[in-house]
């Protein structure tokens, strides 16, 4: 089987956000990690290979630093990686990313059976890439998946919907976007980390894909960013339990008017 996992490098979830002089979010000094949901995608890709044989290819659109997230995925057990890195993709939006990935996966890396992704990137991402990519490749998609079973060229999944879950079945090739709970993510072992250093990591440009800067012109641009108004600490209610609770109920009713 040819198994692909799409990953994105993101800010550490602990990161404090700083707005630079240009009004944009600064990445200076920020610790970068593999997007938490993509860990589930990489894990599922490796598990799928362990059960069915084949190879796991990790793909990403990103800058030089994204190599780290790729090496981490290789250390977990993936076979090789492809980084699409091009100046024209510096401000890539979900549209640009999905155009580049779709070209890669239908051309240079054609012949995949299953693609894994995360359900969303925890930075500026908002769960667009998997849906856009599935549309471009014209393949089935199961989003927000918490359980998966693969047999006889068919995938059965359970996925979250509003207020419940859904059981879906689809034929390969397909795209599965992972939700937390899909699996237990392994940590790279020391030998895994050593081996990862020698695994193939190919860096390609838009030209290598036969795409022009126009093909990936963004549709959405972030003009500026601001910090949200800081929440102020409010009142701490002190005293006997009976008293403070009575006070709280009164405040909720008469001051906040929320009950």
């Amino acid at each position, binding site marked *: 089987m040819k198994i692909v996992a799409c990953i994105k490098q993101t800010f550490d979830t602990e990161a404090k956000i700083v707005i630079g002089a240009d009004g944009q979010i600064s990445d200076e000094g920020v610790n970068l990690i593999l997007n938490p*949901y993509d860990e589930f995608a990489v894990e599922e890709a490796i598990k799928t290979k362990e059960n069915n044989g084949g190879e796991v290819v990790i793909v990403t659109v990103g800058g030089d630093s994204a190599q780290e997230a790729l090496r981490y995925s290789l250390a977990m057990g993936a076979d090789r990686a492809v980084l699409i890195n091009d100046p024209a993709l510096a401000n890539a*939006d*979900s*549209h640009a990313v999905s155009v580049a990935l779709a070209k890669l996966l239908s051309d240079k890396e054609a012949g995949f059976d299953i693609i894994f992704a995360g359900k969303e990137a925890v930075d500026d991402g908002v769960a667009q890439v998997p849906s856009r990519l599935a549309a471009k490749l014209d393949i089935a998609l199961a989003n927000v998946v918490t359980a998966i079973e693969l047999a006889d060229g068919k995938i059965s999944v359970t996925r979250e919907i509003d207020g419940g879950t859904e059981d879906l079945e689809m034929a390969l090739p397909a795209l599965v976007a992972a939700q937390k709970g899909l699996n237990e993510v392994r940590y790279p072992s020391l030998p895994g980390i050593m081996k990862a250093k020698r695994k193939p990591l190919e860096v390609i440009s838009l030209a290598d894909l036969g795409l022009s800067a126009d093909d990936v012109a963004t*549709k959405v641009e972030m003009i500026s*960013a601001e910090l949200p108004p800081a929440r102020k*600490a409010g009142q701490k209610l002190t005293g006997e339990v009976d008293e403070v609770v009575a006070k709280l109920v009164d405040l909720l009713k008469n001051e906040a008017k929320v009950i």
Partner: protein
Amino acid sequence: MSIVVCAEQRDGKLSKVAFEALSEGKRLAAAAGDTVKALVIGSGIGACADELKKYGADEVVLADNEALAAYTTETYAAVLAAFIAQESPALVLMGHSVVGRELAARAAGITDCGLVSDCTEVIFADGDYTFKHPVYAGKAIGTFKISSAIRMATLRPNVFAITEAEGTGTVAEFAPEIPAAKVTVKAVNKVSGDRPELTEADIICSGGRGLGGPEGFKLIEELADTLGAAVGSSRAAVDAGWRDHSAQVGQTGKVVSPNLYIASGISGAIQHLAGMGTSKYIVGINKDGEANIFNVADYGIEGDLNKVIPVLVEKLKEA
């Protein structure tokens, strides 16, 4: 030009966020001098039209077809994309529900439109639209522009006000070709029971590691049911197996903005605050006076939740 609102329904019942999106669409249409059309996709959805008329739809468009009885992203996105192509609207709005976000994104992928997801504000000025959307889980608010002629946006649930309005309210049918689905829906399982959906709830009662065990959630449920609230959880309580992940609030859980958020036995880690920091009012109940939740809570009670919550339930019942 028109504004299209894709109104989400399941089993013929429109979701709350559909009315929020339509109300916002009407407000923007009034500002831009456009008309607003509400598109409903499904099977046996005729009754939705009357309801949507009350919120200012100038036209309700029904894509009513047996092949659309079960929701699949592909078939619904194909219908939405076909309608967008036919209508060429200035703006397409829908709710940022689990279903809405993927449907909008797949339709955007088909039509190559720019889409800003999870908006908390849409502004019309000088003939153009600007969108605000929290990034890095609410640690910053980004301002966005869309360069494609057709702009799409999904709206964060519970943020936009629902307002009744007059509209022409004609009803039209839309019958595009529907592709064969590549996905088969085997079963739909409801889990929320009688409690409101977490992202739509006006009040949320959440519990964390401080509950001490799964039975601690009985207290939270009792409080929630007294208030007609939804039940949420910190990640620590989810990781411990006390609550299903679908209840997790935070950066890697649900993002919620209720009128009232009551956090009991939750320390207030940055990743948790990311999911509930935009709540109108926050109450923190924690035995540690130094807990970070008190830095964001409007009202804080320092004490043992096992003592505080039963009294709170009692007093709420009296009130």
